[in-house]
C-alpha cells in the first residue's frame, strides 16, 4: 500500500525524525489560511501536491508562495491538476526552508540481498533511480543484518562516506537509525527521505518523505487502514481484494478470468501474442466456486470497454465439472452480454466440457486456441 508524503512524514516523526511539518488542505482558501499558520519568520511556504506518484515537481505540482494571496493562487493551479493519471485533491502547505545541502537516504526491502538495505547519496533532491542508472557509484549501500538491525558503525560509515563533517555525523546517524526503526516497525517495503537536508543553520530536516507498506503485513497494523486513500485506488481492485480475488485493471478489451496468478499473467500474454489486448489481470483463487466466479464476472464487466471474456481454468484439485457448473450458474446471475470463451483443462475435463456444451458454451483444450478465439470474438 502506498501512502501520501504527509502521512509518511507523520509516521517518521513518530520515530523522532525531524520533519518539515505542515498543514494539509483541500481547497485554495485553506491554503491561504495555512500560510498564516506555517509561514513563520521566513514568510514563505511551499505547496506540494499530495498524490501517489513521482514527478510532482516536473509536473508543476510543487510551488513556493510568499503571501496568503500567492498561496491561494498557487493552490488554485495545483488542485485538480493531473499528475501521471492522478488527480490532485490535497496539498501539503509547509514552511519554505533555507537549504544548505541535500542528501538522499532510503531503505528498501532488498530482494537481491534478501535483506534490508540502506541507500544514501550526496545527490539529494533528484530522482534517485536516475542517479542509480547514470552514476551508480554515487549511491552508498549498506545491508543490515535483520537479526541485529542497523548497527551504529554502519550508520556512521554512511555518514563519513557522504563527506559529512564529524560534528554533524551524530545527527545523521540518529536519523538513519530512526528511519530503520520506522521501516521495520511499519513493515515497510520502502522508506525514503529525499531530500534529507542540512539547513543553512546546520539542522537536519526530512524535507520530503515517501513510504510503501507491505500489504501482507497490514493485518497486524490495523491503524494503517486510515492511511488508505480511496481516491488513489481502483474501486474494482479493492472490491476484488476484499473477496480474495487478485485483480488489476488494464487498458484492453478482453476480460480474463483465471485461477492462479502465474497462469493469469500467462493468459494475458497469450491474448497479446495473438493480437488482442487484455482488459485485466484476474486470479480467482483456488476454489473457483460459484460465488467467486460470479464476482469475477461482475468485476470484469464493471469495465464497459470489455468486448469478450476469456476463462482459463486449470482444474487441479478443483474439478472441471464443478467449475463448469459454477460458470453456468454465474452466467445466470450476471448479465454477461459479451461472448465468453472458455478453456477448461485438468481433472474431469471431459465432464466439464460436456456440461458447458449442454449449456451452449463452447470450450477449448489449449490456451492458444482459446486466446485466439477470444481475440476473434472481441473483434466481433
Amino acid at each position, binding site marked *: 500500500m502506498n501512502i501520501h508524503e504527509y502521512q509518511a512524514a507523520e509516521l517518521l516523526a513518530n520515530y523522532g525524525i525531524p520533519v518539515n511539518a505542515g498543514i494539509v488542505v483541500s481547497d485554495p482558501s485553506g491554503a491561504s489560511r495555512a500560510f498564516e499558520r506555517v509561514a513563520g519568520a521566513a514568510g514563505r511556504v511551499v505547496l506540494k501536491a499530495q498524490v501517489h506518484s513521482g514527478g510532482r515537481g516536473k509536473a508543476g505540482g510543487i510551488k513556493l508562495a510568499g503571501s496568503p494571496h500567492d498561496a491561494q493562487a498557487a493552490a488554485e493551479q495545483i488542485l485538480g491538476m493531473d499528475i501521471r493519471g492522478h488527480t490532485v485533491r490535497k496539498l501539503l502547505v509547509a514552511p519554505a526552508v533555507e537549504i544548505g545541502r541535500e542528501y538522499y537516504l532510503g531503505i528498501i526491502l532488498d530482494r537481491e540481498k534478501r535483506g534490508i538495505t540502506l541507500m544514501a547519496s550526496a545527490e539529494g533532491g533528484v530522482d534517485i533511480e536516475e542517479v542509480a542508472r547514470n552514476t551508480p557509484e554515487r549511491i552508498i549501500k549498506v545491508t543490515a543484518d535483520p537479526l541485529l538491525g542497523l548497527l551504529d558503525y554502519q550508520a556512521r560509515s554512511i555518514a563519513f562516506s557522504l563527506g559529512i563533517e564529524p560534528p554533524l555525523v551524530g545527527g545523521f546517524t540518529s536519523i538513519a537509525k530512526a528511519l530503520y526503526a520506522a521501516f521495520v516497525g511499519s513493515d515497510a517495503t520502502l522508506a525514503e527521505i529525499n531530500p534529507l537536508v542540512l539547513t543553512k543553520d546546520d539542522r537536519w530536516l526530512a524535507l520530503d518523505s515517501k513510504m510503501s507498506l507491505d500489504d501482507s503485513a497490514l493485518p497486524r497494523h490495523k491503524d494503517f487502514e486510515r492511511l488508505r486513500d480511496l481516491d488513489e485506488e481502483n474501486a474494482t481492485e479493492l472490491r476484488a481484494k476484499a473477496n480474495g480475488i487478485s485483480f488489476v485493471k488494464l487498458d484492453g478489451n478482453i476480460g480474463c478470468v483465471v485461477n492462479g*496468478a502465474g497462469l493469469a499473467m500467462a493468459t494475458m500474454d497469450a491474448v497479446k501474442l495473438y493480437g488482442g489486448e487484455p482488459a485485466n489481470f484476474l486470479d480467482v483463487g483456488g476454489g473457483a466456486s460459484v460465488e467467486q466466479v460470479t464476482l469475477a464476472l461482475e468485476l470484469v464487466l464493471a469495465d464497459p470497454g470489455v468486448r469478450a471474456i476469456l476463462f482459463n481454468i486449470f482444474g487441479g484439485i478443483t474439478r472441471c465439472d464443478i467449475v463448469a457448473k459454477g460458470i453456468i450458474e454465474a452466467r445466470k446471475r450476471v448479465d454477461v452480454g459479451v461472448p465468453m470463451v472458455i478453456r477448461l483443462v*485438468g481433472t474431469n475435463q471431459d465432464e466439464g466440457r460436456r456440461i458447458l456444451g449442454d449449456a451452449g458454451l463452447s470450450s477449448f483444450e489449449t490456451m492458444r486456441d482459446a486466446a485466439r478465439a477470444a481475440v476473434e470474438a472481441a473483434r466481433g
Partner: protein
Amino acid sequence: MQPAPPSRQQGAESRKPTIVSILVGRDTRLLVQGITGREATFHTGQMIEYGTPVVSGVTPGRGGSSVHGVPVFNTVADAVAETGANVSIIFVPAPFAPDAILEAVDSGIPLVICISENIPALDMVKVRAHVAARASRLIGPNCPGLITPGEAKIGIMPGYIHQRGRVGLVSRSGTLTYEVVWALTQAGLGQTTAVGIGGDPIIGTSFIDVLAMFEDDPETEGIVMIGEIGGSEEEKAAAFIREHVSKPVAGFIAGQTAPPGKRMGHAGAIISGGTGAAADKIAALRAAGVEVADSPAGVADILKARLN
C-alpha cells in the same frame, strides 16, 4: 535420512541437502505442520493417497489426536522424536507460519516446505537469515511444494498430471506449473522432480539452488524453468546456466503484458524501480542459451526437440 553431501560449490546454498529425486523419495518421512486445519487435512489425505509417507502432524494443543490415521503432536520436536520425521510441510496461517518454519528448523528437520501465503516480507527476511545459518533448506513460502512422480508428493499439486521421466522443472508459480507439467506429460516427457520455489519476494530456495541439483542429478536430462516478473532471480539464474548448466534448458516467463508498479497476484510479481520486467529476463535467458517459449505449452515442444 542423511543430508546428501555437497557436490558442487556454485550454488548459493550448495552445502545444504539436495532435494531432487535423490532426497525426496523412499526415505522421506513427512511431517505436516498445521495438520488439523481444513486445507492441511485435505492435502494430507491427497498426499497419503499419492503414496507419500506421512508419518506425523503437529498442531499445538491437539497432541494425541489423529488425522487420516496420522498421529498429531504438540511440538515438532516430539514429532521428530516419536516418528523420525525428516521433511516438513507447513500449512500454518501466515501470522504463525514464520514461527512454524523456525520450529521445524530448530528441531533439525533438513527440508522444510512452506505452502503458506501472505507472510509479511520482513518476517521472511528474519526467518531466512536464521535458516541460512543452519543446515536446513527452506522451500517457499507461497509455493505449491514439490513432487517426485511415483515416489512422493509433498505439496498441493494435482498428482495425476505428473509422470516419472527425465525432465526437471523449477517454477515460481502454481497453476502455471501444472499447465507446463500437463503439456510435458502429454508430450511424453515425464519429470524427475517438479519444484515450486514460491511467488514471494523473499524465498528460501532460489532457481540457482534447484538448477544446480538438476545439473547434478543423473536422471535429469532436460530442465524447465518457469519465471515471472519481479526481482532479478531469473537474470541470476541465466548467468548461472551460462557457466554451470550443460543440460538443455527451456524457459517461460509470465507477465510480458504486466504494467510496472502493480502487484500481479504474487507478492513478488511486481516490476519496480526499473527491474523485474519480463523482456529483460527473457533477453538474459536467451543470451545464456536458454530457449524461451512464447507460451507455457511451448516449453514441451522445445524440450521434445532437444531431447529426442
